[in-house]
């Protein structure tokens, strides 16, 4: 074997080694990115300082099959959609814990709230939130009613609510409640009136 060919073999070996290190680096970067995203998905609670406002919450009680009404003073942002976002995050934080948090359910509960006109809100919940709710007709309806009634109670102009999951329309919340439609405050009025 001549010297130039030997050198080229060595160069190729170095290239192969370099490619291997690069592949390993790429793999690690994916893992790091996933961990970063998971950290980003941690629950963001409303601000705990500043002027407080009295907020009405309708929290589902899956065992009793009703909503529990409560009023608390919490600090809220000024902007309308930011306020609703903060209210819903505070509401979700009050939901009964159905199971220990797992990597799949420990993510953020609320991604965003969008307002259309004065009367319509679109709530974008995370898949982790939807999957963490108990599966059942009544349990899922309580969840939907809780969101709609809480938004309406704190901003009576909002009478139509649509729920998305991870930014997309989903057929059901956890196998039962229909998420393809808009819910009106009137439809969940029975739940709100029966709330304790």
């Amino acid at each position, binding site marked *: 074997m001549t010297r*130039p*060919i030997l*050198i*080229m*073999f060595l*160069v*190729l070996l170095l*290239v*192969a080694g370099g*490619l291997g290190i690069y592949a390993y680096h790429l793999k690690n970067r994916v893992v790091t990115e996933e961990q970063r995203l998971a950290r980003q998905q941690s629950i963001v609670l409303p601000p705990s300082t500043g002027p407080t406002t009295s907020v009405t919450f309708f929290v589902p009680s*899956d*065992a*009793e*099959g009703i909503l529990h009404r409560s009023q608390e003073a919490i600090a809220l942002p000024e902007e309308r959609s930011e306020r609703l976002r903060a209210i819903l995050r505070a509401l979700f934080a009050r939901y009964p814990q159905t199971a220990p948090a797992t990597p799949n359910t420990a993510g953020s509960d609320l991604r965003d709230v969008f307002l259309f006109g004065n009367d319509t809100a679109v709530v974008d919940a995370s898949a982790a939130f939807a999957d963490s709710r*108990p*599966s*059942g*007709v*009544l*349990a899922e*309806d309580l969840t*939907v009613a809780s969101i709609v009634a809480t938004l309406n109670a704190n901003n009576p102009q909002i009478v139509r609510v649509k729920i998305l999951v991870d930014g997309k329309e989903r*057929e*059901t919340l956890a*196998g*039962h*409640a*229909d998420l*393809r*439609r808009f*819910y*009106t405050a009137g*439809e969940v009025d*029975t739940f709100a009136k029966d709330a304790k």
Partner: protein
Amino acid sequence: MRRSRPRSIPIAGLLLLALGVLFAHWYRQSVVLAQPREGVPLSVYSRQAYYSVPLMQLNGQSYVGLVELLEPLGTVDARIDGKKLKLNFVAPGSRELEVQFQDGKDKGKLKGDNIKLPANFSIQNGRGFIPLSAVSEVLARTLSQQIRLNPAALRLFIGDVGEHFTLDLRNGTPSKLFISFGVPVNPTIAADSNHIRFTFRKDAVLPTVDQASYNDPLITSAQFTEHDGIAELDITGTGALLANIADGGRTFVVTGGPTIPPQVAQQMPPPDLHIPSQPTEGLRRPYTGPRFLVIIDPAHGGPDVGAAITPDIAEKDLVLTLARRLQRELSNQHVFSSLLRNSDIAISLDQRAISANAARPALYVALHAANTGHGVHVFTSMVDASSLATRDFLPWETAQAAYLDTSSIAAGSIAAELETRKLQNSLRPASLRPTNNIAAPAIAVEIAPPGDNVPDIASAAYLDQVAQSIAAGIVAVRNKIPEVRP
């Protein structure tokens, strides 16, 4: 003087090219082709069990995991030794035997004898795979049993397992086709305007005849097909057909069902369809089926297990049990009913609504179960009845709006019967599909545990009480619910 180009550059280029080709080949073999084939697994029928084994595509061929194939049939002890898979297998009542294959080689050893596969054995992610075309020989030599593999249909029969059936058409008014099996079977039955289809997934049903034609005014043909790991028996008629189950699931009797004009069956049937009092001959056949039909829809099925009531009880299984009990109770009360799902099979929400609407039931009852709360919850649809502008055309999403009054009557009657039996209950609206899409009176019933002990939800006594309450509630308002239109 002209300087010559070093010879090492083209050589290095060639070597780099070769390296690239080798990498591309490795990537294709290890990453691209090693992906499991989407969807359809191999259905395996044996005396021990029915099970399915996922297929993997390698080098353009279907491969099957050897351990996954053998595990349900006996005790398997497999280990990877370098590039070799060494596997010890003991079938019940048999002696241990050893199987050995090597990754990338088509030759192996089975019981100490050589065996040649039609394609190379493959080890992927620590699991050994044999080509699908080698399954018959490997299993026959491993189990010393007769093997029947239908590779196109992805159905594998081990030993003398397999159930043939007979077809017996008895002319009459209406005609009846008797489909008889030697053992009870549990197919999924689906009907549309003039077909009825029996789908067998877990039953090892084998063809007796592929096709039969009948010179009969109601039932015209029967066709048996195998594909995608299932067997299907399609009965075609000149009008709507219904199936009755008899002899503990050994016999199915296909006969005339509620007649539906074809153009209506394909869409939403409007509630007040103007049908001429003297229908034109040939367009409508004389009505021969039941006038009051209850469609029972056990929710979920297949991979959609619904709620996990306990680690051992899935909602899909519990509601199927309840559905069968309800059908029995209704039958005792002389009310004709039909199950939308009578086995563990997935049906989409839209398909459930289409099937239910096509049957034009007097009442649709969806069954659900949950492990939260207590008692029985009866639901009517949460659609806005005031949104109903016309009864001539029903929007799919709110078709139930036209029937809310009657649905509420049925739901109230069932809640009253639950109360009579001292079962905790509630009656409320819910936005639930496909109930919203049903163009007939429709309710949903969700059972929760009767007390604090969740497994009690599956007790026979509780399920019987619930089924009796629902049946009694339906019977009590039967005269208030319009019968299916003849």
